[in-house]
C-alpha cells in the first residue's frame, strides 16, 4: 500500500483514496497535422515504462479530486515526492535537461 501526500490536502493519505492517472508530462506534438504517423503513434500509445524513477499522475478521487504529479520508483515503490502538476513540471524538465 502506497502512502501518497496530496499537495492540495497537504496530508499523507492511503493509496485507497487515489486513482492512478498515467505517465506525467507527455508532450503533445505542437502541430499535430505536420507530424508523421510514427511520431503521433508514439505520443498516443508509447509509454516509457522505466525500471527506476518514474513521473506519474495520481488523482485524489476520494478527497479533493485534483490530479497531481508523483515521482515514484518502479522497483522499490519509494516515493520521492508529490507536487502540483505546475510545480512538478519545473523539476521534471530540470531532470530531463
Amino acid at each position, binding site marked *: 500500500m502506497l502512502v501518497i501526500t496530496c499537495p*492540495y*490536502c497537504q496530508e499523507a493519505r492511503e493509496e485507497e483514496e487515489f486513482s492512478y492517472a498515467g505517465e506525467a508530462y507527455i508532450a503533445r506534438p505542437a502541430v499535430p497535422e505536420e507530424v508523421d504517423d510514427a511520431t503521433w503513434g508514439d505520443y498516443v500509445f508509447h509509454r516509457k515504462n522505466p525500471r527506476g524513477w518514474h513521473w506519474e499522475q495520481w488523482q485524489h478521487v476520494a*478527497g479533493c479530486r485534483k490530479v497531481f504529479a508523483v515521482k515514484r520508483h518502479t522497483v522499490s515503490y519509494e516515493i520521492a515526492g508529490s507536487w502540483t502538476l505546475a510545480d512538478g513540471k519545473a523539476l521534471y524538465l530540470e531532470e530531463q535537461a
Partner: protein
Amino acid sequence: MPKQGFQPFMESPLHHFKLDAEAQPRRTDGRIWCNELPHLGYAVLRGDTAEAGFAQLVEQVTGLALPLKAGAVSQGPQGVLMWTSPDEWLLVSHRQRLADWTAQLDAGFAEHKLFAQTVDSSGGLTLAWLGGTEHLTVLRHLGVYDFESIPLGHMVSTVLGKATVQVIRLDTDGVFVVFRRSFADYVWRLLRRAAQPYGFAVCQLEARSDHPLFAQLAAPRPSLILA
C-alpha cells in the same frame, strides 16, 4: 395516460429503513447513536479565491467566511460551509435558505462578472449523525483515515468501504457523515453493521438553535410533493 400525470415527490434515500419509527430518545450509555438528518439543502460552490470579490461576496450572502485551509469548516447557526478542494466548497443548510443563497450568489457572480458557480446537489446527498463514546472506533473499522486526528471544526473527505464520504467533526460528541444518495443504503448498512458490537440505536435528533447543523432541523420540512 392518467389525468394527474407525473407527480414527483421527495423522500429521503433512507426512507425504507423507517428510522422515525425506530428512533428513541438518546440516553447516556456506551451505545452508538445514529440517525439521518433528512431533506437538508446542499450546494457545491466553485470559484477562484484569487479573484477579487469572490470570498467577500460569499461571506456577505451566507454570513460564513470562505474557508481557505484544507479541511476547514466555517460554521454558524445558519449552516456550514466547508472546504472540499482548493476551488470547491460544500454549503449545507435547510432547503429554503439554501435556495435563497444560491439565487443570491448566482446573481452576485453575474453582477460582479466572477468566474464562479453554484450547483444545487440537494437531491444527491444526505447526512447522518453518528455519536456515542465509540463513534470514531466505528469509522476506524470502515475507513483508512486516522479519524481521531481530525481537529474539531474540520472535515475530511475519504472512503468508508467503497463509498466516498465527507466526515465533519464539530465536537467530541459525534461526527456528521455526508454521503451520496446512490450510496446511502450501502453506507447506512455499513455503519449499522460496524456499530453492532458496541450496541447500535437510532436516536431522535432534536433541533438545537446553537448548533450549525441540528439548527436546520427546526425549519419546516420542505413540501414532500414537488411542484
